[in-house]
C-alpha cells in the first residue's frame, strides 16, 4: 500500500465512522425508548443493534484486505463498495428490526 492508498482509506473511513456512530446512537437510544414504554429489547433485536455497530468496521476492514494489492482507482472502488454495502445493510437491519418490533 502506498501513501495514496492510506490517504484514500483515511478519507473513506470517515464514512465508515459515521455509520458506526449512527449505529452506536441507535444501540443506546432504541433500548432506552423501549424501556420508557416498560418493554425490553429481545435477543434478536440486540443482535441486530450490535450487527449495525460491527458491520461497518468488518466490511471496511475486509475491503482494505481485498484491495490492498490493487492500483489506487481499484482500491478506492473496493472501499466505496464497502461503504455502499454498509448503507444497504443498515437499511435492511432497520427494516428487519422494525418488523421484529411490530411482530
Amino acid at each position, binding site marked *: 500500500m502506498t501513501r495514496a492508498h492510506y490517504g484514500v482509506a483515511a478519507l473513506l473511513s470517515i464514512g465508515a465512522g459515521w455509520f458506526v456512530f449512527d449505529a452506536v446512537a441507535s444501540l443506546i437510544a432504541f433500548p432506552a425508548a423501549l424501556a420508557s414504554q416498560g418493554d425490553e429489547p429481545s435477543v434478536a433485536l440486540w443482535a441486530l443493534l450490535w450487527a449495525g455497530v460491527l458491520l461497518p468496521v468488518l466490511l471496511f476492514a475486509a475491503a482494505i484486505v481485498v484491495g490492498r494489492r490493487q492500483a489506487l482507482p*481499484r482500491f478506492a*472502488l473496493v472501499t466505496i463498495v464497502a*461503504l*455502499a454495502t454498509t*448503507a444497504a445493510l443498515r*437499511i435492511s437491519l*432497520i427494516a428487519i428490526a422494525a418488523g421484529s418490533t411490530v411482530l
Partner: protein
Amino acid sequence: MARPSAPDDDAALRWDYLDDSSYLDPGAADAEPNDAAVGDVVSASDRGAVMDAQDAPATPEQPAPGLRLLTAAFAVVFVLWSVGWIISVGLVPISGPTLLIEVLYQFSEFLAIVASALWFAAVVALTPQHRLAPRLGWLTLGTLVLLPWPLVLGVAA
C-alpha cells in the same frame, strides 16, 4: 534487393543477406505485392518461421467458457436489485433530527441504491476473465448480501 551472384566483399556490412533464416523482413507483415521477389528467395519454411515469430507474443488470454453468459445473467439480477433498493428506500422512511444528519441519511440511501451497481462493476473489474469461479463466487455473495430486505419483508407481509 537481389543478391549478386559473385562473392560480395561488402555483404557483412549490409542487412540484406536473404539466405539467413534469422533475417526478418520488416515489410513481410504487410504482404504487399512487392514482397513476391522476396518470396522467391526465402523458402516457405523460413517464411513460416518469420510469421510465427511475429504472431507468437500477441496471444491474449481467452475468457472462460460461459463467463459472458454468467456475467450477463448476474447483470440482470443486479439491475433488479437496484430497482428493489429504489423501492425499498421509499418503504423505510428515515429522518434525522438535524439538517446535517438528514443530509447524511439521504446520502446513505443514495449509496444503498447504487450499491448493487458498484458491487457488480467492482467484481467485473477485479476478477480475471479466464477463471470462472472467483467471478461466480463474488457475484453470488453480492446477490445475497445486497438482497433488498425492506422490499422482501414488505412483499412477505
